[in-house]
């Protein structure tokens, strides 16, 4: 039962019980509401990106990954192109990175995306907790704006 084809897939990842790590899920909830009336947009939120998602990516024209980033400065919002070239030294079993997922999609389904980007929000804490840090809370409006703009651009192209 694959879902109907959507032109743009928003694929978020995070854990809402791990403080700032839940920012991807928060943005996914917003995206669901924002694009509720638009059948061309599909939103999937998971605690981790698993190989199964390759099928969903293959069914879309474009994909926007959304995740927290512990490497970025707190509150910084990045929009980064994602390549399907896989780092051969990276291992994979339960959890895949965006470029591994994209590579898997290409290998299994021959599917190449017209757009593939990662929206990453720099975080402060991924300790147990249900609240965001002040920098992440402050970054949410900008992250929502970047997400909306990216999806509309994907749909417009």
């Amino acid at each position: 039962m694959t879902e109907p084809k959507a032109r743009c897939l928003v694929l978020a990842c995070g854990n809402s019980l791990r403080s700032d790590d839940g920012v991807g899920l928060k943005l996914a909830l917003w995206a669901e509401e924002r694009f509720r009336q638009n059948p061309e947009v599909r939103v999937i939120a998971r605690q981790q990106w698993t190989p199964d998602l390759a099928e969903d990516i293959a069914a879309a024209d474009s994909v926007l990954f959304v995740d927290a980033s512990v490497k970025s400065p707190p509150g910084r919002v990045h929009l980064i192109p994602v390549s399907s070239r896989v780092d051969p030294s990276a291992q994979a079993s339960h959890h895949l990175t965006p470029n591994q997922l994209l590579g898997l999609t290409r290998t299994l389904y021959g599917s190449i995306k017209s757009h593939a980007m990662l929206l990453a929000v720099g975080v402060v804490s991924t300790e147990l907790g249900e609240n965001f840090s002040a920098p992440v809370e402050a970054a949410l409006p900008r992250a929502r704006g970047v997400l909306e703009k990216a999806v509309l651009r994907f749909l417009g192209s």
Partner: protein
Amino acid sequence: MSQTITIDPVTRLEGHGKITIQLNGQGEVENAHFHVTQVRGFERFSEGRPFYEMPSLMARICGICPVSHLIASAKACEAIMSVRIPHTAAQLRRLLNLAQMVQSHALSFFYLASPDLLLGMEADPKVRNILGVAAAKPELGRAGIALRRIGQSIIELLGDKRVHPGWVVPGGVTEPLSAAKRDKILAMLPEAYSSVGLALGAYKQIAGTFQPEIEVFANFPSNYMSLISEEEAIDFTDGALRLIDADGNIIEDGITASRYTEVIGEAVEPYSYTKFAYYKPLGYPDGSYRVGPLARLNIVKSMGTPKAEKELAEFKQLAAGPVSSSFHYHHARLVEILYGIEEIEEILADSRILDKHVRATAGVNRLEGAGQAEAPRGVLHHHYKVDENGKITWANLVIATGQNNNAMNRGVLQAARSYIKDGKFTEGVLNRVEALVRTFDPCLSCSTHAFGQMPLEISLLSADGEVIDRLFR
């Protein structure tokens, strides 16, 4: 000078564990252990909770097999309530458990085991993963993903969530099945059949090349335990316990959930947080036994569905009596996927599956209750005691991995002794020791974690703790 090899963490498992291998002064393997290094504590922190919360609380133990915990827990609660659930509710639970079996076995075979099976035990660890499998055998990669999706989609259609559905409750299920959902499930089954057929064909082609591994992957006589129906057929959800010995003789039969403590004891070892279950009359460790797909197929006389029945007959040709090498867990898992798909189809063919009466209600009528169900990795027991207000005062869970614990440890020792000579080892050798553990598909927690990104470190230590050699993956 004695030495210790540590494999920490063991990769491509559900949860966190490590393996240590002790060598003597001559470089021979003296002992080996599989350690489960995580603590969960579900039995203790459920104390004080209302009993009817238990299914949803206990399901959180695992992200892969929550359905089995839901069902065993709900059954324990129903024993406390003294209710018999409606027939349709029981059948709907069977559907849910079958769907879980399909998706969990697909995860084990395609994502965790197939890198070893399809790419080889000695393959470069950088490609010995699901991405490597996809590159080498894309049709099998797609089949694995399809079976996972189908199993999880059925769970989602029935319970509204792919993981931790709240649909199974004490007394039955919360919602009946609609005709539209039934038809959606039926529409998925042709793809499921073709996917598992592909996997069975591929596995049978390569299994013969693993004869050396078959010989030493926990290949020893043991007892086996599983649920079995009154017709002596496989039964993941109901039925009663049967225990057979290494020759296939029945040593216990018809053990219902309320009697499990008569036959099952639990021992502890200082090196692991997982208990070691054993058959009480034989004591520990002589009473150790195996559970899960290998045990189930060794015990049952029939699968009860035509395609799986043929596969069972072929499986039983692997040995004159019970099939003893744990390598054959992989084969058994695929046969069970096929059975799961067939059984789902059969259950949905009965129009009573759409019946609206799917829940019985009652309060506390007994102060103790137990329930059992087959999880993908083996039979699972939940046992609760409550006060007169229905608050949990005591809980005990006997999980599949604990029941396989002794066999896994014996298997690690057998494989290590076979492969490690003169204190020398390679990454491929240690991968075989890990692969032996993977045959059991142990479920050490299944909560969120990113195992794929963790390094594998193997250290060779002298008796005084000095690092003599180290391998990284």
